[in-house]
């Protein structure tokens, strides 16, 4: 059986295609690297934001697209990391690297607790439970005023000195983003990741083949939380401010929507999804303050017309017209 699963892993694409793929990747990476020369600092800030949220969307995708568990708590994991980074640097005067590390650790610990609770559920129950857990964290951040600053949130001092220049931050985020993409890609295409896909397709089959389904989901959840934590820690530097809206349900929903728009089960799609949603947000915000209404409406429309995501939809349309 392991052999069969491994055979699935090997790409059956011809060599020429994988060379082409490699060349395309190189072009994209070089393009991203020279972006600071082409864009204004405002546009570069947008690009940085897109890279950060693509990381969040990928972490959602690890669960939604590969383990078949759609989570609605990743905004809370992401935001918890942001809170911890800013709080640690404000209150304890921690330098940036240990503050970031602490943020990622806190997010991973939170994800571990969530995973322990949610691991026995699936489908809609998993969604509901993670939603409730995420809302609990939001409620705590809203009410625990003397730590979290309540509605007013916390302002950091992370953009002073080194990161006052958005270009440097962009390069750091780009590097981390590519590294996390690579790591997540390795994770989902490892034998472990293939087992996850097996669980997504048929949980009972994998269980009767002797795989420990809850353990696999638990590990996937924790790993996914770790990556969401990295995104949240970077967001702390980028935004230099955190309030309950960072950790609110809308954040989880946005992350999930980005993963869905890009197509679940395709990590690279998260970049497409993040770009589409963040540019849409910018565009809408120029005309109206009703972003949440638009976000909700987009969600409804995607669910009705293109649940396979924009990339998948275009592919399907192209196939039909051929």
């Amino acid at each position, binding site marked *: 059986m392991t052999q069969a699963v491994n055979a699935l892993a090997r790409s059956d694409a011809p060599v020429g295609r994988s060379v082409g793929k490699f060349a395309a990747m190189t072009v994209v990476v070089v393009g991203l690297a020279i972006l600071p020369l082409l864009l204004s600092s405002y546009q570069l800030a947008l690009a940085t934001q897109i890279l950060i949220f693509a990381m969040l969307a990928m972490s959602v995708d690890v669960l939604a697209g590969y383990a078949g568990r759609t989570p*609605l708590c990743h905004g809370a994991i992401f935001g918890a990391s942001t809170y911890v980074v800013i709080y640690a640097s404000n209150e304890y005067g921690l330098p940036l690297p240990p503050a970031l590390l602490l943020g990622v650790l806190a997010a991973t610990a939170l994800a571990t607790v969530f995973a322990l609770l949610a691991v026995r559920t699936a489908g809609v129950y998993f969604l509901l439970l993670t939603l409730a857990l995420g*809302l*609990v964290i939001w409620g705590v951040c809203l*009410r625990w005023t003397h730590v979290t600053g309540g509605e007013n949130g916390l302002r950091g001092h992370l953009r002073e000195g080194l990161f006052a220049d958005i270009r440097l931050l962009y390069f750091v985020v780009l590097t981390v983003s590519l590294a996390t993409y690579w790591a997540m890609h390795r994770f989902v295409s490892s034998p472990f990741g293939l087992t996850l896909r097996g669980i997504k397709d048929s949980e009972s089959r994998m269980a009767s083949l002797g795989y420990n389904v809850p353990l696999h989901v638990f590990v996937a959840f924790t790993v996914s939380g770790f990556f969401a934590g990295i995104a949240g820690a970077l967001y702390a530097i980028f935004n230099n401010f955190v309030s309950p809206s960072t950790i609110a349900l809308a954040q989880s*929903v946005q992350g999930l929507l980005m993963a869905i728009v890009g197509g679940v089960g395709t990590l690279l799609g998260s970049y497409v999804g993040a770009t589409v949603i963040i540019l849409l947000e910018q565009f809408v915000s120029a005309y109206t303050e009703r972003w949440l209404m638009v976000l*909700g409406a987009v*969600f409804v429309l995607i669910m009705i017309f293109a649940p396979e995501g924009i990339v998948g939809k275009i592919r399907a349309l192209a196939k039909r017209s051929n």
Partner: protein
Amino acid sequence: MMLFQVLNGLTFAALLFVVAAGFTLIFGLLRIVNLSHGALYLFGGYIGFAVAVKTGSFILGGAAAMVAVALAGLVLDQGLLHFVKGYELRQVLLTLGVAFVLNDLALVIWGGDTFTVPTPEILQGPMNVFGVFYPKFRMFVLLVGVIVFVGLWLLLHKTRLGALIRAGVDDAETVEATGINIRLVFLATFMLGSALAGLAGLLGGAFLTLYPSADSEILVFSLAVVIIGGRGSLEGAAIGSILIGMLNTFGQVWFPELAYFVIFGPMALLLAFRPLGLFGRAA
């Protein structure tokens, strides 16, 4: 003092029950997790508030809230959920999108201010409950909660519609095969559940007040209630509401800033032993 807190817990539980009963009925029968239930609660509250202020009648406010939200449920079920029939996850995420739209719409219409629904004069002021002076209105909410429980129990166990709903919970296909239009039963349940959210919005608007994030707050409580009580179970919703209501009240007294964590505990414990909730059954 203790009795006072117990009454606080019970009255809050009664409100939660009215919200969660509608939620769990829809979840149990239609397999639809309506995440816009909280937004419907908020809308019901605002509409009830507007009508109650305009007409000066609390009862008219309640009627308006229930009818308006039941109609919103009708539109939601027939206009949107219809397109994603049979896809559980897509349904849930769709209702989540609807929740965002409704919440933002409420912000446009009523702004970010806090409103309190005016209560009729005979429900104002305190009354003597076993030697404690306690707000009359909160006792009224407790009474409504009990009436809704008894009413729903009678509906489910003593009427034909109730029998159909219970049969539908167990096996919708077989009910349909006996020549009954289960779609109509589904629709009636959806509208009834929504109307309960509207009623709860009015009651909650009078003692918890209405503000833009009230929908998320009530949603997390009703989720916890349904997770604890189990899908589609009226008794589960009642026990879950009392548990959550009490824990939240005493949590706020003992750990004012961390009350949210207190509802997290029993949920965690329960899930460790009964992932489907106290009265939940596998689908």
